[in-house]
């Protein structure tokens, strides 16, 4: 088995493992962020460039360094490979550059975005973003559109990760949305107005790393950190029926697939991916529809994590203010003391 060293930590991994997967086996801070890679989607990854790392030594056989940063999600480890992620200031600088690129046209509308709190771009911005933008031109803007009656598309927020396109290709039959146009104005679209009509179409919401594709049945219902995730299942004729219910009080506000610590859809016990059907997602919002398994295991550091609302919210508030302060185009939001305190929000 190849031995790879990432940020001075050695790990032995199976042949064919990517650098990102190897880093995830080690875990902790050295795991590169990934926006477009999704381990359950074939050929995903490589596009967003946030997971870039520096390969200091290619392999034991050929110790030369790789000339450019590589996408860790699409680069297979070699025996004796030496990789630097967070121990390379140069690499962190390069990643900050990528993050800046991803944000220059982003609307930074987290306060009104349903994805806030579970948004990978938000996390990335916190970890690598700068306090102010250096971009002074008008941002690219698209009108929000409906893709069918259950999915909202906010193209302004999209980072073109291709995950939703791959979901449609790989788990539904007959993809009807895709990426049209080219370059800076490329967009997710059905081109002519068309609903994505398919039992599994809702999974595009679960794989979207940002708030570009959101569940209309959950739209503006609550902030995710006020909802409580519970794992549940039902006998479903279409899908595995293993889901996550998001409660506010007694009410199920949202049903999603179960996601792991990397934000990727989990596997079922039999090893298949736990994609869920639209019936489970949209039409089963009563507790009586489900067999409850218990509270979901959520990463301790997530804003969603119980008992950490206080500190997390404080961070969010500080960071949101930081981000709002950098909005150059007219949106002015004043958040007073305690504005984001959950108790105040409900007043």
């Amino acid at each position, binding site marked *: 088995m190849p031995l790879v060293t990432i940020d001075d930590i050695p790990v032995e991994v199976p042949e064919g493992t990517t650098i990102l997967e190897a880093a995830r086996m080690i875990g902790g801070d050295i795991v590169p962020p990934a926006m477009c890679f999704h381990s359950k989607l074939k050929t995903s*990854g*490589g*596009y*967003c*460039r*946030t997971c*870039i790392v520096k390969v200091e030594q290619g392999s034991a056989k050929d110790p030369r360094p790789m*000339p*450019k*940063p590589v*996408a860790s999600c*699409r680069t*297979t480890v070699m025996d004796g490979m030496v990789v630097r992620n967070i121990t390379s200031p140069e690499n962190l600088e*390069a990643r900050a*550059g*990528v993050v*800046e*690129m*991803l944000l*220059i*046209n982003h609307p930074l509308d987290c306060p009104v975005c349903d994805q806030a709190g579970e948004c990978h771009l938000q996390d990335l911005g916190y970890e690598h973003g700068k306090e102010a933008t*250096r*971009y002074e*031109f008008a941002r690219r803007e698209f009108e929000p559109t409906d893709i069918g009656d259950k999915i909202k598309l906010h193209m302004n927020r999209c*980072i*073109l990760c291709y995950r939703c396109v791959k979901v449609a290709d790989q788990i539904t039959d007959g993809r009807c949305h895709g*990426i049209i*146009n*080219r*370059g*800076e*104005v*490329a967009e997710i679209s059905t081109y002519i107005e068309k609903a994505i009509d398919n039992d599994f179409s809702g999974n595009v919401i679960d794989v979207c790393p940002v708030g570009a594709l959101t569940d209309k049945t959950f739209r503006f219902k609550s902030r995710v950190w006020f909802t409580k995730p519970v794992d549940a299942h039902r006998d479903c004729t279409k899908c595995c029926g293993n889901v996550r219910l998001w409660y506010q009080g007694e009410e199920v506000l949202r049903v999603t697939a179960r996601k792991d610590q990397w934000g990727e859809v989990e596997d079922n016990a039999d090893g298949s991916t736990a994609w869920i059907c639209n019936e489970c997602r949209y039409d089963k919002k009563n507790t009586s529809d489900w067999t409850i398994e218990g509270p979901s295991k959520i990463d301790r550091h997530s804003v969603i994590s119980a008992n950490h609302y206080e500190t997390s919210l404080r961070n969010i508030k500080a960071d949101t203010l930081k981000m709002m302060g950098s909005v150059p185009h007219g949106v002015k939001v004043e958040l007073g003391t305690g504005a984001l305190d959950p108790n105040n929000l409900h007043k």
Partner: protein
Amino acid sequence: MSKKLLLKNDHIPNINQLAVYRQHGGYAVLENTLKNSNPENVLEEVKKSGLRGRGGAGFPTGLKWSFLARPEGVSRYLVCNADESEPGTFKDRYLMERIPHLLIEGMILSSFALGAKTSYIYIRGEYFYVARILEVAIAEAYAAGLLGKNIMGSGFDHDCYVQVGAGAYICGEETALLESLEGKRGNPRIKPPFPAVAGLYGCPTVVNNVETIAAVVPILELGGDEYAKIGIGKSTGTKLISASGHINKPGVYEIELGLPVEEFIYSEQYCGGIRGGRKLKAVVAGGSSVPILPTELILKTANGEPRLMSYESLGDGGFASGTMLGSGGFIVMDEDTSIVKNLYTFARFYHHESCGQCSPCREGTGWMEKIIHKILDGHGTMQDIDLLWDIQSKIEGKTICPLGEAAAWPVAAAIRHFRSEFESYVQNPENIKDIKHYYRLQN
């Protein structure tokens, strides 16, 4: 220094026709090779010739061919990259238009060496009329038994087809080209796997530039060793140079590699000097992507050596004081030229041509264009120049394909060598309108 191998017959009337081409020795190399040689020998001769990819990257062709995977029972393909779109480059168009059979002969010879039963010539859509010329030539070749089954009784079967693109610079990148050839968007693939292992339709594929493939004909005619004697050092053979801009005689010139740049610009045999007797200001020597150099650095290296038209000499000094031979797109600018405005046309080009697949290029190319536009508009600041520098550094090397570098390098070089011009635009915006941006048309 006026050795001609590819264009030795370009002046002959109707050389585009098979009969005329054959009268002047055309397809003799093919016949001889099919009868008296074998694929291994052809590969060996190409290796010995030292031929390097003429599309821009300059990778040794023989080595590229030797990487081709040869699993049993799997088709192999040769794809000719005729998606010539690098600003300043028009040599492939000239070659295909004038002597289409030279390319076709090269295609058959190369396919023979690679064991490819099918080849495609992917030509940019705008060259539609050139595609027609190729189609006619291919039909002639089929009719004469030079393509199809059992070519010249050798037992070698080969089909060659022309495929048109539809307007996308990015399809000149070999994996984007293959995607496009498969009927998809021209998004570059993430490598590995390389085309030599999984290319067209997932099969082992070699993608070579038009000029590279055409050069196989004279290489086999002369023998690899003889070909390698032409040129200088590791820059063997001849190279087609597309000369344009403020020169007296723009056009396509075949030069022996190693020709002094100064001779190329000023000699009557080539560019014939600068229009109107003006002074030279700068040259982009190898197509829009390569660093622009001011007069003093294009004529002489930083060490004071005469700069030569070769991969090594043009690269001498690295990017600090050198550039690249690239595709041989040689754009000449006279003393009145606005380097900033010329850079703007490049930045606008790369912004337009970015496929949008990866973030640094998708977002960064547009950002750079906007800043340069702002400077040209008289609203630039000194910080903008530094920002521009920083943005290009954040794109370079961070993208899936080389378009990132292609977009970043011209910006970096313009600032590196002409920073004072940017600064004067910032400091004296009122003068910008008086700056003569380009050669005004008469009449």
